[in-house]
C-alpha cells in the first residue's frame, strides 16, 4: 500500500480537505499505521505549539484606545470644519477681530504713558531757558520752572497739581474735614493751616 503525501495528511489534520478527499484519507488511515503515525506527529506538534501562551493586554489598554480615538476625532472635527471655505473665512475674521481687539487693548493701556511723556519732555526747554541767566548753586529743576503756564503751552505736571489744589471743593475744607481720609492728607493740613 502506498502512503499518502505528508501535505495531504497535513490538510486532513487541519480540515482543509473537501468531503470526498477527507473520506479517502480517513479510509487510508484505517489501514496504514505509518500514516497514522505521521498524523499523530502532527497532532503532537499542534499540542507543543499550544504551550506558547499569549501575552495579555495591559490594564490601561482600553483607556489608551479610547483616548487615542477621542484625540483623533477632535482633530478630525477641526480639520473637517476648516475644510469648508466659509468656515475658513469665519476663522480668518475671528483671528483678525482678535488681533484688532488685542491691538486696541495694548494701545489703551499705553495711552496714559504717552500723554504724560510729552509733558515731561516739554519741561526740558522750560528748564533750559533760565540757564541763560546764572543759576544759583543747588537750584533744582522744579525751582527753575516758571510759576505760570504760558498761553499755548501744554500744562506741566506741577501745573496740574496746582490746578487740583485749587479746586473749589478743597476751599471748603470745613465741609470735608469730617472725612477721616482727607483729614490725614498733608495737603489738607496745609489748607487748614492757611
Amino acid at each position, binding site marked *: 500500500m502506498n502512503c499518502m503525501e505528508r*501535505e495531504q495528511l497535513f490538510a486532513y489534520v487541519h480540515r482543509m480537505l473537501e468531503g470526498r478527499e477527507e473520506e479517502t484519507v480517513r479510509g487510508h488511515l484505517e489501514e496504514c499505521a505509518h500514516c497514522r503515525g505521521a498524523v499523530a506527529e502532527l497532532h503532537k506538534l499542534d*499540542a*507543543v*505549539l499550544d504551550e506558547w501562551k499569549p501575552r495579555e493586554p495591559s490594564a490601561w489598554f482600553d483607556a489608551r484606545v479610547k483616548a487615542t480615538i477621542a484625540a483623533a476625532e477632535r482633530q478630525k472635527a477641526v480639520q473637517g470644519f476648516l475644510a469648508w471655505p466659509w468656515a475658513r473665512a469665519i476663522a480668518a475674521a475671528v483671528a483678525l477681530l482678535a488681533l484688532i481687539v488685542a491691538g486696541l487693548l495694548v494701545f489703551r493701556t499705553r495711552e496714559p504713558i504717552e500723554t504724560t511723556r510729552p509733558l515731561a519732555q516739554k519741561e526740558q526747554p522750560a528748564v533750559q531757558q533760565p540757564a541763560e541767566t546764572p543759576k544759583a548753586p543747588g537750584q533744582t529743576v522744579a525751582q527753575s520752572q516758571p510759576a505760570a503756564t504760558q498761553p499755548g503751552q501744554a500744562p506741566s505736571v506741577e501745573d496740574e497739581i496746582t490746578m487740583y489744589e485749587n479746586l473749589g471743593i478743597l476751599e471748603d475744607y470745613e465741609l470735608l474735614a469730617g472725612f477721616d481720609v482727607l483729614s490725614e492728607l498733608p495737603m489738607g493740613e496745609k489748607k487748614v493751616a492757611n
Partner: protein
Amino acid sequence: MAIDRDLELMLAVRRGDASSFEELLHRYRGPLVGYFSRMLRDPAMAEDLAQETFMRVYQARERYEPDAKFTTWLYRIATNLALNALRDRKEVTPPFEQDFEGEASEPRDASRIPDARPTAEQALMESERQRIIRQAVESLPERQRAAVVLHKYQDVDYRQIAKVLGVSESAVKSMLFRAYEALRLRLEPLLEEGRL
C-alpha cells in the same frame, strides 16, 4: 453565533453606537495583543499596534461593508500593520534572503535575526520550552509566520487567511504546510521529550 454578533456590533458602531465599539474592544483586545506580540515580540509595540488597529477600525466604520467576516477585515488591518512594522525593523538590520516565491526565507545566520534577544521581563516570564517555540516561529519568513499565527493561535481558517494575505487558498495551504514542516523539524527535541 459569534460571527453574527461581530457583524451586529460593527454595524451598530457604523451607526455611531459607542457601547458596541466598547464591546468589540473587549472581545478583540486580547486576541490582537496576542497576535502582535507573537508576530513582533516587543510588548510595547504589540500594544501600540493593537491600539492602532482599533483606531483604524473606528475611523473606517462608515466604510465598513458586511460582505466578509469581521475578523477577516480586522486581521487584514492588523497583518498589514505587523508586516510593515517588521519591514521597518528590518531596514536597520541585514535583509533576509528572498526565495523564488518572493517570500523572505530564513536568514543564513541566526545572529542576524532582528531583535533576537528576549527582554528581561520575557526572560522571567517564559519557560525554556516556550522560548524554543517562540524562536521556532520567529525563524519563519514573515508571511509564513503571519499565516501560522493566524491559523494556530487566532483561530482564523485558511480561507480567511487567503483573504487577509491577498493570496489564493491553495497558496495558503501550501504556505501553511511548509511552515508547519519547518516548525516540526525545529521543535523535534520537544516532540521527542514525550512530556505532552
